């Protein structure tokens, strides 16, 4: 459901500025030029919030507010006064009638968004469900850490990714950065002085621009109190020190809802290739398992009828890997894909040692496998 915000102001300029301010958010802006029009629109549309000027012709904001509060159907609609009338006496008088908030002109668009964002759950337009970004896309990561060695470890550990890691030593510096460049993810050390990580978290969560930005807490593995506090206030995830960068990278990809299938699946020259990495963790195996059916289906939909399952990089074989390979082959069979396996001598030898895998036929190189699948194609088309 899209939220409705009603702006009541005799100045078309202010109504345009309000519309402009909310253009990146999932909401509709309704307009009225005075209190009479405002009440009519409010009755008809039941807005979720009203931005109300004070000085207007026909019916001013104070009268509209008074009538609104005496109407049982409208009295609960939150009203934010947006007006040049900002003297203490005026503010107190209007506050007594019952306004949720008060913005004195001149105002910055950010203030408008923030104050309305406290009333309704404003979602940025790009936060609505859309095609997930890929692991191959650039992203801005902000890391707030006063220990240079940790920051360096994170920058080095993510160097192979397309992500840009912006290291900062203080939350003040980070807030300035975030105001200019909305980050895709923030990691903040929970051991910063004066609990500033938690203050930072509250500040950016109160800003609708960053309401959905994933925030990780960087915390020492044994600091249970900080971990508990971070979970209670709603940090997206924790990255525990000493950092396991493979795990951190996976958590980041998950938090940013990235399509990571490109790490394992590739469609090129009419062949779908599934490559198992050298030392896959359980998380990696789970990822591959989850992608198996959708990726093979996608390949079939794209007109691809051949697949290569490549375990050449694999260093050791275990039951979880054997299971995922069985599943991959079974899915290929179900969807009528011609497939073949590529392995290295150690893995091929290990497979010979198991009853269930001893009949698996491997090629020693991708080129051989591709040539073999090419021959299938020639045979099929000439048949």
């Amino acid at each position: 459901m899209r939220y409705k915000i009603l702006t009541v102001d005799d100045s078309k300029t202010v109504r345009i500025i309000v519309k402009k301010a909310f253009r990146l958010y999932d909401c509709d802006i309704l307009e009225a030029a005075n209190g009479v029009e405002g009440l009519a629109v409010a009755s008809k549309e039941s807005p979720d919030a009203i931005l109300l000027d004070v000085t207007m012709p026909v019916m001013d904001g104070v009268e509209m507010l008074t009538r609104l509060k005496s109407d049982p159907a409208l009295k609960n609609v939150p009203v934010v006064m947006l007006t040049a009338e900002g003297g203490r006496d005026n503010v107190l008088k209007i506050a007594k009638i019952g306004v949720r908030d008060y913005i004195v002109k001149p105002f910055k668009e950010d203030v408008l968004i923030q104050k309305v964002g406290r009333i309704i759950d404003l979602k940025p337009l790009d936060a609505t469900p859309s095609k997930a970004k890929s692991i191959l896309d650039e992203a801005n990561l902000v890391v707030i850490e006063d220990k240079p060695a940790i920051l360096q470890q994170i920058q080095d550990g993510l160097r192979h990714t397309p992500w840009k890691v912006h290291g900062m030593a203080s939350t003040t510096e980070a807030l300035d950065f975030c105001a200019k460049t909305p980050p895709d993810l923030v990691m903040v050390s929970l051991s910063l002085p004066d609990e500033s990580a938690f203050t930072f978290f509250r500040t950016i969560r109160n800003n609708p621009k960053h309401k959905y930005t994933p925030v990780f807490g960087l915390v020492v593995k044994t600091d249970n109190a900080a971990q508990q506090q971070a979970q209670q206030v709603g940090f997206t995830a924790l990255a525990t020190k000493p950092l396991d960068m493979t795990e951190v990278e996976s958590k980041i990809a998950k938090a940013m809802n990235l399509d990571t299938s490109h790490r394992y699946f590739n469609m090129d020259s009419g062949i779908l290739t599934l490559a198992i990495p050298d030392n896959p963790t359980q998380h990696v195996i789970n990822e591959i398992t989850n992608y198996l059916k959708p990726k093979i289906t996608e390949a079939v939909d794209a007109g691809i009828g051949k697949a290569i399952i490549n375990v050449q990089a694999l260093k050791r074989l275990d039951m979880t890997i054997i299971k995922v390979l069985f599943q991959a082959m079974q899915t290929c069979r179900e969807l009528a894909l011609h497939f073949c396996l590529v392995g290295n001598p150690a893995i091929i030898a290990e497979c010979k040692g198991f009853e269930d895998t001893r009949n698996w036929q491997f090629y020693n190189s991708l080129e051989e496998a591709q040539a073999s699948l090419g021959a299938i194609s020639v045979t099929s088309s000439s048949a």
Partner: protein
Amino acid sequence: MATLHEINETAFRETITRAVQDVFKTMIGQSAVHANANEDHNLKSLAINGSQVVGSVGFIGDINGLIYLYFSQDFAQEAAGSLLGMTTQEIVESGDEVVNDAIGELTNMTVGAFKNQLCDRGYPCRLTIPSILRGSNFSIEPIGSTTRRVYRFNIGRHTLVADILMKPADAIDA
């Protein structure tokens, strides 16, 4: 009740300067610099040359007054464009009404920021609805009982003239 004479010249200058600077910086991202050299007080006649868009907003209460902000035609279009996020070309195509409304709102905000400071100094008053004048080569003379102060501000390559006309509440019927 406080009287108008209790507000000294420095306070007036600081109040209008803060109002102009705050509004123009916040709304159109431009710094306003008070041009001391051209400051005039109790002028009998103020001459403004060239095509102007003039916004005026009054305030009524313990102090009554009216502030005129004089924008050259170019400055008015430029300021309206910045305020609305439109190019000068788009502003020209949109017509004078859009510029008038934008200048009315900038004046409303500036006078609001000015009079809110007066309210907080103990002179409660409220704003009137903005009005706009357009014309060339103005020559303005206030009525005798009015206190007049004129301040000029450099904003980018333009000059903004703020003409403040005020009289205390007890002088309304005078």
